């Protein structure tokens, strides 16, 4: 078995902002195998694959392709070594034609430098026919369904004669029929000695298609072997680890009065018929896989997106929310995910990021009072243990955890009775994570009504009283904390099981 590896990644280390993401991670790939790379969100799968794809370099460690050590300087190097990366978010250019996408960056030209359009179209048709689909090579990608866009990406990899293909959750956007077609295709590729690294959360698929597996947890390899030798439970346990269920931050609560009541909320293409109730002092979790619509749902409740129908009641009063400001006035606060894009204003100082949503608290006669901002910030600095030497620096100079705490301080300053946290511990280290969980629980004990959105099930289990699972825009389960476990939640999140049970 050994010596036959097309790819060996050994002892890879990687940190972002001094937060270690990968610790001594290793991965070996045999020729002509389908290898499952497993782990929870944030375990480091994507980071490992991005290193292989040349998106960013490893801090330490070696990569060997066909036994030869290589340096992954950029994506191009990786491609030249025969590695293709099919990303979860599709990298096709919607405004180009199918064949133009297929040959993007390596167009065929004649001696005059003009494009050989017909040849490229012919080749495109050939490859696509091999995949069992007929698409006009001259059709615009914009007009195609998501699943076809996926096929174009795969076709692109085939076109480049890739020997190693990385597929990052390729089936999330596909229908069952298309998944089967993809699997047949993968088996054909395997027979042609192409190796595939397959990233997925859907363990059923893994059992069906994969030969071997590697499990990552918190940046470390915790297991690897043949899929046939293991059952699903054992693999799940490896992914989740033991530490999860040990530590629960939240205690039993006496549910307070009804704070937020959502009925029949629908937005075409995003989510359908959402109903739930949130009480004071309650922590409500929403979880699911990518594309489940939970972020879109709460962006709508917060007035960032438009909803087409349904109603939102805050403390028994129906409120129209078309702008985040109206949500704030109704009493809803929202800590968005993707801190860098949505939450921090990187050119403003730490002080100013804290005060931006509540400037009326710091105004006298229309003029801002910097001293009040300062003293208020120092209050939060103590309360939230924010580590910053000089709060006059712009916020992007802080580490992820401290940035997030400043964002939390911003919303604590606004002091809304309802707080929504979307992925509140994204990209921050374990210490800061704990502090944020504790803070959230503390807020609930003070009587705030809290919603947490997270794709990390253990996180949800740690802090929530009630857990809602979403699948493709619908709530598929409402579980009390005591009834919920990771397996159960996964079944609802992947759509393999569903119930509509109303609680509360």
């Amino acid at each position, binding site marked *: 078995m050994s010596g036959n590896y097309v790819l060996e990644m050994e002892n890879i280390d990687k940190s972002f*902002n001094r937060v270690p993401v990968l610790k001594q991670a290793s991965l070996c790939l045999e020729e002509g195998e389908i290898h499952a790379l497993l782990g929870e969100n944030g375990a480091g799968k994507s980071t490992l694959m991005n290193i292989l794809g040349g998106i960013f370099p490893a801090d330490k460690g070696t990569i060997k392709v066909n036994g030869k050590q290589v340096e992954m300087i950029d994506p191009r190097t990786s491609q030249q070594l025969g590695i293709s990366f099919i990303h979860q978010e599709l990298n096709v250019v919607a405004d180009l034609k199918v064949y133009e996408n297929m040959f993007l960056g390596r167009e065929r030209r004649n001696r005059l430098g003009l494009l050989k359009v017909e040849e490229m179209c012919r080749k495109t048709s050939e490859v696509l026919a091999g995949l069992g689909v007929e698409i006009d090579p001259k059709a615009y990608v914009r007009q195609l369904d998501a699943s076809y866009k996926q096929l174009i990406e795969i076709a692109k990899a085939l076109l480049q004669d890739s020997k190693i293909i990385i597929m990052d959750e390729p089936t999330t956007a596909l229908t069952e029929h298309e998944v089967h077609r993809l699997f047949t295709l993968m088996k054909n590729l395997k027979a042609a000695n192409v190796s595939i690294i397959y990233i997925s959360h859907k363990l059923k698929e893994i059992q069906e298609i994969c030969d071997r597996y590697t499990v990552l947890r918190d940046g470390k390899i915790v297991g690897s072997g043949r899929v046939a030798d293991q059952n699903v439970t054992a693999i799940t346990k490896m992914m989740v680890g033991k530490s999860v269920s040990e530590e629960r931050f939240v205690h039993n609560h006496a549910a307070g009065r009804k704070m937020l009541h959502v009925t029949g909320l629908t937005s075409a293409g995003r989510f359908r018929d959402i109903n739930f109730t949130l009480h004071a002092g309650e922590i409500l979790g929403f979880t699911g896989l990518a594309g489940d619509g939970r972020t879109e749902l709460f962006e709508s409740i917060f007035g960032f997106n438009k909803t087409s129908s349904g109603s939102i009641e805050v403390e028994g009063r129906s409120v129209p929310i078309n702008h985040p400001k109206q949500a704030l006035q109704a009493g809803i606060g929202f800590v968005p995910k993707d801190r860098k894009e949505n939450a921090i*204003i990187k050119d403003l100082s730490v002080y100013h990021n804290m005060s931006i949503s509540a400037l009326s608290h710091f105004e006298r006669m229309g003029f801002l009072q910097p001293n009040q901002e300062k003293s208020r910030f120092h209050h939060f600095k103590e309360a939230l243990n924010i580590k910053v030497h000089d709060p006059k620096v712009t916020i992007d100079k802080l580490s992820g955890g401290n940035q997030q705490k400043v964002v939390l301080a911003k919303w604590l300053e606004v002091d809304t009775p309802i707080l929504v946290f979307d992925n509140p511990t994204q990209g921050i280290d374990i210490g800061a994570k704990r502090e944020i969980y504790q803070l959230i629980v503390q807020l609930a004990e003070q009587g705030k009504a809290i919603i947490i959105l997270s794709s990390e099930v253990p996180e949800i289990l740690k802090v929530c009283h009630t857990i809602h699972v979403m699948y493709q825009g619908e709530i598929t389960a409402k579980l009390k904390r005591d009834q919920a476990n990771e397996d159960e939640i996964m079944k609802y999140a992947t759509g393999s099981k569903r119930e509509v049970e109303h609680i509360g």
Partner: protein
Amino acid sequence: MASPAIKQESTQPPDKNRHLSWLWSEYSVIIAFVVIFVLASLLNPRFLDVNNQLNILMQVSIIGIVALGMTIVMLSGGIDLSVGSVLALVGVVSILSLNATGSILLAILTAFSVGAFAGLLNGLMVAKGRIASFIATLGMMAGARSIALYIADGGSISGEVTSFTAIANSELWIIDYPIIIFLVMTSLVYVLMQKTRFGRYVYAIGSNEKAALLSTIRVDRVKIGVYSLAGLLVSVAAIIETSRLNSISSSSSGQAYELDAIAAVIIGGTRMTGGRGKVLGTFFGVLILGILNNMMNLMNVSPHLQGFVKGLIIIVAVVFQKRE
């Protein structure tokens, strides 16, 4: 929790070198101004003459006021190409109003409403119509100039109320009114941008519009305010321009002012994409442009070559800012 603490340590400027680079990044335009000022005074002894100094200030006051508005727009992440045309339109309409009513006050009010209205339209197009500011204001640039030409029949209009000229041609002690107006406007805009909620919102929107919206800022309203304010400042500049010669040309007044204003803002260190920059930077940017023009006139450089030097300075300024 050790790692973030370490990171904090490293962001402190530990040595002199970092201190210098901080000084440079914060005040590069002032340093550049001092260098150019000293250079100019060495090259030509007449440069330091008080009358020449006041002359420079007088010449930059109109562009300076326009550039203040441009600074606000660019800090919000936009651009306003319509300032020159709107200036001509405001001038033409306010002279008409002056001649028709004989009232200077009414003429000024007319100017303010025309400028602010043009700005409001820009703001509505950008904020509500979601048109890129470059395109929206390009349209306004063509439209406003055309209306000015139509009203004035392509020529100039002169004022018939002679006391109107007093606005731009009077002095307080030895300082001309336009200089005073420019300085007052600079301080007002400075206070607005640094000390009020509006200013903070403009920086936030220019830095990260989505995060600003999710921080519950009324992004649309702030943007409309930004462009209206820029229009209002153009009105102030238009009143001075018109009053100075007691006439306005529908075809040539305000021509290429947008370029000078943008140049001053860029030299002043404001980032093209918004969110970062200072009103004071623009003030010195305007002065640098003024000194360069003045020097070239004193040294008899052909006016045809002056644009070349200006272009060079803009590019050099941006190259230096990229360094940080």
